[in-house]
């Protein structure tokens, strides 16, 4: 098992290297000049040149790439051109809201999606199944900004139950932070629910018709036990894959929800950085997102072995 994990870790290196090269060059060849945004509208050409030199942006692209790569290998993602702080610091500062948001969205997604998908499969082609299909189609089709706006106007403005936007960290207000997370987490959760419910439904449907399930039932194993021990466990591999990938997508793709709810996470950091061409931050957030994907894929692969003993020896 240890060797398997090591192999997977080594395989991650070329992936991250390709991402690093692509992120650097795409970012740097995109039109737009951060220096002119920093010095302001009315700076002289001399001031522009001075700032460009100060930020090291006057160097040829390959040299800048070499310098950046040297630092990245040592774990230093550089310093933000605008925030006047190291990129790793900016990322760490904004990681808490993104992780909490993604976790709570995923939690709601699992809490609603897996039972819904299972129920739909168990009542295949009945009313519950149709209801689940409609709910999951709605969850996937409604864009998150629309869902967010609807939730804010109903539960924030009309009912006044939750804040319309904003974020408070746990260190600041303790469990009061949950109050700020409910609406954004629900926005993400409904989307996750839809994805997980659909996958659970089809995976469970496939397993339900297998011989071992029929045998278990014929032996008189209680229905709940059949579902939990035989069906769901065997359907787990595709569900876990979707769970993991959708969670990775959540971590890297919460930016719309972060923007609508004014949550200072990594998504809003990346968007602001792109708008003002803050190269080190853009590169850092892309590398970070890629790292998350690689890490979660690794976890998924390891978890396969937990669910399917046949995979342990491979």
């Amino acid at each position: 098992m240890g060797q398997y994990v090591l192999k997977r870790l080594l395989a991650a290196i070329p992936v991250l290297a390709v991402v690093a090269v692509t992120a650097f060059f795409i970012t740097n060849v995109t039109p737009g000049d951060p220096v002119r945004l920093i010095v302001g509208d009315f700076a002289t050409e001399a001031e522009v040149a001075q700032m460009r030199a100060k930020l090291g942006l006057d160097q040829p692209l390959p040299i800048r790439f070499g310098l950046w790569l040297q630092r990245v290998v040592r774990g230093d993602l550089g310093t933000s051109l605008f925030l006047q702080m190291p990129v790793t610091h900016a990322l760490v500062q904004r990681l808490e809201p993104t992780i909490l948001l993604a976790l709570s969205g995923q939690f709601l997604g699992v809490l609603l999606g897996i039972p819904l998908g299972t129920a739909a499969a168990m009542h295949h082609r009945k009313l519950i199944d149709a209801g689940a299909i409609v709910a999951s189609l709605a969850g996937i089709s409604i864009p998150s900004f629309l869902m967010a706006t609807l939730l804010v106007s109903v539960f924030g403005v009309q009912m006044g139950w939750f804040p319309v936007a904003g974020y408070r960290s746990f260190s600041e207000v303790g469990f009061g932070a949950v109050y700020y997370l409910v609406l954004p987490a629900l926005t993400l959760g409904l989307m996750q629910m839809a994805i997980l419910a659909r996958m659970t439904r089809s995976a469970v449907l496939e397993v339900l018709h297998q011989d071992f399930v029929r045998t278990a039932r014929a032996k008189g194993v209680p229905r709940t036990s059949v579902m939990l021990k035989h069906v769901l466990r065997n359907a787990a591999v595709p569900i876990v894959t979707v769970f993991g990938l959708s969670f990775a997508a959540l971590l890297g793709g919460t930016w719309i929800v972060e923007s609508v709810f004014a949550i200072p996470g990594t998504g809003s950091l990346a968007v602001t950085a792109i708008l003002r061409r803050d190269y080190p931050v853009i590169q850092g957030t892309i590398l970070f997102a890629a790292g998350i994907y690689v890490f979660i894929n690794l976890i998924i692969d390891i978890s396969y072995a937990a669910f399917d003993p046949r995979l342990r020896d491979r």
Partner: protein
Amino acid sequence: MTRKLTLLFLIFLLSFAPAAAEDADVEWGGTLVAANALTLPHLDPDKTTDSSVGQIMWHIYEGLFELDEEYRPVPHLAADYDLSDDGTVYAFELREDVVFHNGESMTAADVEASFHRYLENNGGGQTIAPYVEEAYQDGDYTFVVEFSQPYAPFLFFLSSVVANQKFVVRPAEIIEEFGDDVITEHVGTGPFQFDSWQPDQYVRMTRFDDYAAHSGPYFGYSGEKQAYVDMLEFRIIREQSVRTAGVRSGEYHFADQAPRDQYSIFQSDAGIEPWVVSPYRQSFLIVNMGHEPFDNLQVRRALQLAIDPEEMGLAVVGDPDFWQLNPSLFPEGHLWHVEDAGEDIYAQPDPEQAEALLAEAGYDGKPIIILNSREDEIESRGALTLQSQLEAVGFNVEVRLLDRATVVEQRSREDGYHLHFSQFLSPDPDPQVYQAWMGTDKWIGNWDDEDSRKMDAIFEEMLITTDLEERYEVVRNWQHAFYDLVPYVKLYDFNQLRLTTPTVQGYSNFVHPTFFNVWLAE
């Protein structure tokens, strides 16, 4: 005798009546939450051209001078000043009652240290610096600045509300500690003192109980200011719909940049107080005079005659409550407003004459590039409206709407654009700031001919004319020359919409959202 004494006593009481009545209304305490669409890189207004930093931090920091309601500089941390007869030496007498948020009194040493940092770091200071010979303290409460020549815009720059121009005073030890680096320890003299900043979340400030208020009439940042609320929290909310929803739900007391198209809905909503901010900004069309066809004055005049600012205001801004025609480069009521600027030219489109001028100038039909940001609706809608107006007189037009970072890069190239919309703050403190924008090879105009040198000469005269009445005549000449030489085309002035909840009392509608003398009636 007793009746006389009673009468005197009554007169004495009456003389306090208005103030007492005003004070009786005021409620102290509470937290005022203001939702703003800000991007704060840091909180040092001397180190950024982002106007949002100043808007927030000028609740904490104060200027030696601030602007009164005619946008005339008035002493604020200074008590008075004296200008030498040759117009080169300013001696400032400082107020002796000013206390910093760290408890120490403000002296000339603090002003001197702050001023030297201002000259080195602040955009306004850097503009002034080449003319400053010496700046020094003369005793504990006198500060002297000596210029190499008369420098008329000095006090206007010191009190400017434009980003990166105002001079604020900080303790000398803070200046010594941070030098030219971004200041992260915020000690000022204002009614609010710094509490905390969470990037992209909020900036919080609390009432400074030992604040020594100025006694003059209040306007903007000048005069008698007071912090009635215990805490002022600027919440950073970039989504317009969320700011508006927050005021509706009562979660925020204030929202900046509300949707103008919902003005009538807000007016009929008892839970919302809408504020139309005027003067706010003016819209200009910037002309690239570095190459054909706009290096030709005749083509620029054709451009001026082709544009209908009234149609543009209606198409771009819409509701007439939010825009107005104004030929002057300063709003009505402003010290530098010129009533007869652009007479017979401004907002009098004449497509036939424009077409004739264009033919006479030999315009060859090469495409005119209008370059603008697609994120800003005033700019993007303006570009599309302008396209149809220009095509109607024979210009061949191509509209390029890109993201701001790309626009900024492309417009800096001499061949990167022909026309570009820009917005300037309407109540600019001084016409001299336009020297950096229009004149020989200034900003992105690429203007370099006899006409640009005529414009330079006007600005040079403006710079050394310290007498206000004489300077007004120079400013008047400049605004007339603006219409003769057409370096830009003035379009219209436009306003902003802000919202408060009915609990917000004492709010005054200034170009920046300010929360002095504001209380919460809960």
